[in-house]
């Protein structure tokens, strides 16, 4: 009895670099709890301090968003896939990081999201 959890590129660094992880079947909540135990850093990305799934991380069972099923109570049967789909902004955005020289000269665009934070 096993299900596949797909890990998006953005979060693979917190999951030992794995693109997918095989876990025992159960509810979405149980599966994600097991995932958190195995990869605590990944858990911090998925859940906020109040223990709720973060609003920019969506979880799908098959092709359906769990918000439109039974949420974390949704049962995942043997052979099904759980997908973690975070919001991505795109481009070559330097996410937590650095201000590109071109942007220092010409404005806000490519690295804006990063830049102002990084400087805090």
């Amino acid at each position, binding site marked *: 009895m096993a299900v596949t959890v797909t890990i998006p590129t953005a979060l693979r660094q917190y999951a030992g670099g794995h693109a997918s992880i095989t876990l025992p079947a159960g509810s979405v909540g149980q599966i994600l709890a097991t995932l958190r135990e195995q990869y605590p850093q990944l858990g911090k990305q998925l859940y906020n301090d109040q223990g709720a799934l973060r609003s920019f991380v969506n979880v799908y069972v098959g092709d359906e968003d769990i918000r439109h099923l039974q949420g974390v109570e949704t049962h995942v049967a043997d052979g099904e896939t759980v997908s973690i789909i975070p919001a991505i902004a795109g*481009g*070559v955005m330097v996410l937590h990081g*650095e201000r590109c020289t071109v942007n220092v000269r010409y404005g806000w665009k490519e690295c804006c999201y990063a830049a102002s934070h990084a400087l805090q």
Partner: protein
Amino acid sequence: MRPVTLSNEEIRRYSRHLILPEFGMEAQRKLKCGSVLLIGTGGLGSPLALYLAAAGVGHIGLVDFDVVDESNLQRQVVHGTSTLGVRKTESAKMRLRDLNPYIDIATYETQITSENAFDLMRPYDIIVDGTDNFPTRYLTNDASVMLGKPNVYGSIFRFEGQVTVFSPEDGGPCYRCLYPEPPPPGLVPSCAEGGVLGVLPGVIGTIQATEAIKLLAGIGETLIGRLILYDALTMRFRELKLRRNPDCPVCGEHPTITELIDYQQFCGITPEEAQRDTSIEITPIEVAEWLRRDDSPFLLDVREANEWEIGHLPGAVRISVNELAERLHELDSAVAMVVYCRSGVRSARAVEQLRQAGFRKVKNLAGGILRWSDEVDPSMPKY
């Protein structure tokens, strides 16, 4: 629809469309009198602009205020070496003019903001989101919803892309139904994760162009209500269902956001740069001098291995900022240390972390490798 005819030249040009039974003269005429606003003329905007122009979309608007940089050309195929340093809107316009002289191209050398978004979007039938940051994505979404225009959405990250069409007017969801809030800045991956496979926006942008053309021509089945995920590394396409959120603050039954807001603030961005702690910084010139003395500092490089490969300071030791917490025991707090990264941002975080762990003699190389290359060693490659 405005009466529109195709000239004999246009008929020759678009003949491979016209002989498609599902397309034909009618769809081609719809493209000719259709209009698309492209927000961003970068990785996604490049293939979008090229294919929409080639297909004969009659009115294309380009919004961008950046200029073409060498590092863009790995993926932004509408631009070229000959237009380095040129405004992206102008660079793209020149290429599109050459590609198809029968269409109108409007350029807007500006950043889309809450103040100008409605004015920019209003004349267009379709909005295409080819941007690369969360504030502009939420702004584009909200303004499109409020104006009742379809928003052809694409986004990319490293090897992965997402693409869909948001159109509450047609009963589908909007971006906020999918993601009500953006990630807080601290929770998104670090800069070393920020690259992108050059061909990836080609794939995603081309899908966006396909959808825009179908919407204008009124043919086929669009991506409204479906999200396509593409993984270039494993070469897999997947499709997920998207549903409208009745409680969506923008397109829901009782919207709470009815005018454009401050999207920088919404995304947690505070523009003040003054918060930077400069007391822990040291300039490249000072470090270069220090390295020539007997008491030269220990150099800690906190970048990723692939960045180290591009170039690093002689004698430095590399521990990624992401591994620093687990590898503190490898460092000696009694030794004076200079920490660096590409631009000085990650190293500032590392210095903060080291200070909290009791390292007192730690300085951050201001401006990182980039400034080192400018001020000390021009042979150090900038990336």
